[in-house]
């Protein structure tokens, strides 16, 4: 059996991406997973129907809120263009608000935790569609191979450095999320992944939504997308680990 496993592995070859050493390609970051930004068009000159068509009200006259955007692509025909790289999906809550539809300059969020580059990650779902869960867990598959970067998923928050939160917090999950964060040893960091975890996404007005993740636990970094592509999530986890060694996150 060992022989056949090896034979198959040899036939398949190496699948693992070279990200983050080189930028993500369209295979890894399809157009729909990219952050839409004002390209040649100024936000103010967009026809009002475009703003009205946005299901989450992410586009205003002055800014695009990437945290609210669910990547439904309704605005793209009107002249908005997807951002080129994965890190455009990352930022503090304020950093995801793009004035005039362009990424804000300057530094990222202030570091909250002192974490080294080798991180143990615990996933908590507070009311997702399961898409973000699967994208996060998918980081362990041979294409992304989280382990090559010295990172691992853990089965208990007791062993975790990074809490990845996905979904829109329902009433039933507010306390479990708080308890999970409490159960983690310090130093620790929280990564909110996906539009639901940032500002409710498409479910911002849903009757089942109880709170924003940021109101329950302190969030260090947000990854925008619905769901974000695995490379964007990977970029987010890497950014948390990079803080101490290489300065602030993007």
């Amino acid at each position, binding site marked *: 059996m060992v022989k056949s496993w090896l034979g198959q592995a040899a036939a398949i070859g190496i699948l693992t991406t070279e990200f983050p050493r080189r930028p993500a390609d369209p295979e890894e970051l399809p157009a729909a997973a990219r952050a839409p930004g004002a390209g040649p068009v100024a936000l103010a000159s967009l026809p009002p129907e475009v703003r009205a068509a946005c299901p989450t009200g992410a586009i205003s006259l002055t800014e695009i809120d990437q945290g609210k955007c669910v990547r439904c692509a309704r605005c793209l025909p009107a002249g908005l263009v997807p951002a080129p790289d994965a890190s455009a999906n990352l930022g503090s809550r304020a950093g995801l608000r793009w004035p005039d539809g362009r990424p804000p300059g300057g530094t990222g969020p202030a570091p909250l935790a002192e974490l080294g580059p080798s991180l143990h990650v615990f996933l908590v779902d507070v009311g997702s569609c399961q898409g973000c869960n699967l994208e996060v867990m998918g980081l362990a598959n041979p294409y992304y191979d989280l382990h090559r970067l010295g990172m691992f998923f853990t089965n208990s928050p007791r062993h975790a450095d990074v809490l990845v939160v996905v979904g829109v917090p329902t009433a039933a999950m507010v306390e479990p999320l708080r308890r999970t964060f409490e159960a983690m040893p*310090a130093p620790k960091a929280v990564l909110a992944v996906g539009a639901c975890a940032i500002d409710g996404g498409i479910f911002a007005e849903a009757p089942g939504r109880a709170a924003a993740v940021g109101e329950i636990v302190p969030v260090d970094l947000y990854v925008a997308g619905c769901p974000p592509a695995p490379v964007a999530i990977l970029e987010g986890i890497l950014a948390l680990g990079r803080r101490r060694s290489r300065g602030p996150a993007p």
Partner: protein
Amino acid sequence: MIGGAGLLLLLAIAALFGGAPLALVDRRLGYAATFLGSVLLVIAALAALDAGPFTALSWTGVVGEPEALHLDALSGFFALAAGLVWGATSSYSLAYDTGPGRSLAVAYALTLGAIAVLFSTSDWLLFLAAWETMTLAAYWMILEAVGRPLRIFSAAFVFLAFGEASTILVALAIAGLYDGTGSFAMTSPIAGPMVSVVFVAALVGFGLKMGVAPFHMSEWLPIAHSSAPSNASAVLSSTLTLAGVYGLFRVVALLPDGPSWWGALLLTIGAISALLGALFAAVSEHAKGLPAYSTIENNGLILVALGISLIARSDGLPALAAFALFAAFFQALAHAVTKAALFLFAGDVERSVHTLDLSRTRGGTKAADPVASGAGVLAALSLAAAPPLAGFVSEWMILEALFQSFRFPQAWLQFTGLLAGAVVALAAGLVLVAMVKFVGFAALYRPVRPPNAERPRGLRAPIAGLTVLVAALGVLSPWILTALAPTVSAFEGARTAAPVGSLLAIPSGWSILSGSPSGFFGIISPPALLLAFAIGSLPALAYFALGRRGAERRVPAWSGGRAAPPPSETYTSFGYSTGLRLMLSGFLGTREVRRASSPGVSAEIATPLSYDVDLEVLDVFKSFYDALVRLVLWAAEGTKRAIMPGRIGRYLTYILLTVLVVIVYVAAAFPGP
């Protein structure tokens, strides 16, 4: 002429028995008397071990036998162990026995007195009388269980039934001894064709009292010992079984070198007892049933050690024989003290949580009373053979003796020894499971109901005292074993020419050696182990004393994001050992019984059907005894119908026939002039 030690012994027996009438006046007075008697007995026993045998009193018995109350190194050893235990149980009883009646104290004093006489008699007839008194007094003691639940009557009856069966066989063994020697004296060695009969009768008779397989009859000993009040349980499980051990050793000491199968039989029975005792202890859910099963295991180990000793002796391996005897004696001493501590502690737990049912507590890491719980943990650790405690030393010695069975000349004996070694090692593992359970659910626990705050304060000092003794016995074992040399000589002396002191198996200095005259086999040093533990734990202690305690943050236990569930809905002690129940279902006869507890129509799912589930374990020997009971009942019924139908004519015929038979016999046996 009564010497000082003899006077002490007499006073001790008088005080122990005197506790009974004194208890009628005041319960506390009775226990105080037995406490005094125990202390005197310990001093007298030490004198016997140190200065040699002495006689306290001698007289001529009813059948013209010279009778005496005396102690030698062998009986002195057992009296010492018993006295130590009783000192603790008597002072414990002062605080524990708050029941309405005084009869428990009376029965208690009678039991102690009877056992003391049993140890100090030099004559088999008085031995038998003491044996029977002890059984009856113990029966009474069991009946004094708190609240006298209905099941106590059947438990006590089963105890009595096995006790009487034991008496009959002991009487048979004594008859055999008398037949071979023409004397009831305990000093007359026996030879001749009856020796094997005496051996088997003694083994079965005393084995019954020790509760070893197959006479544990699906927990008669655990049920009886655990149903009794806790001070009585401690006396029963530590010293009543010790009386059985003493009787067996006494008889075997008088026997010549027997055939190899004696030893092999002891090994087999001992190993099976150890395994079954350990297994049932591990699945017991009763805070006193668990230690009671462990008693079976420990008595099994004593038999194993004795078995190795007998085989080694008849095969010309005196060093191994002596070493195994040392192991047996040390095991008896260690077990008596430790088990008493555990039972007394269980009584304390019962006072706190109102129950002995382990499923009514939940695992925890906190102790209600650090002193008592610490003592309970230490006693359980000793039984689980944790170094450097007493139980560890005896277990190590027994395994060392078993490992040397390769020295036996016959292959089948080597194989038996090897197999027994494997079984004993397995039992040791299972005992560890049992004791972890005891520690986790009885010593350190979270109560399901709020604990009783008004616990008698006097309970913990005796428990702690016994536990200090357990630790001291372990750490100081090399010197204690040296002091036991006279006991081994007293047992071996009758037939071994070589003085025990010259054997290499004797512990020397700081360590215990096992081996042969040509070289040592194993070595261990409990004091050095203690030293190593102490040094090894220094960094941890220093860390906690000086370390960054400020960085500590306390959070609730992780429970999948839920609030901590109430204790009633967390892991049970039953759950802890269900793995064993399922894995060893063949041994345990595990079966699941389901009973619908609310009427429900299975087709109508809307009415929830609720059912009770019970995972029962069954002793394989139980079915044998059940069959025996059925046979007896069937025979009794048949006898009643066929022979005693209740017709007066039939009975007159029987009388006539009997008279005829007697006349014919007399005419034939005593022919006239």
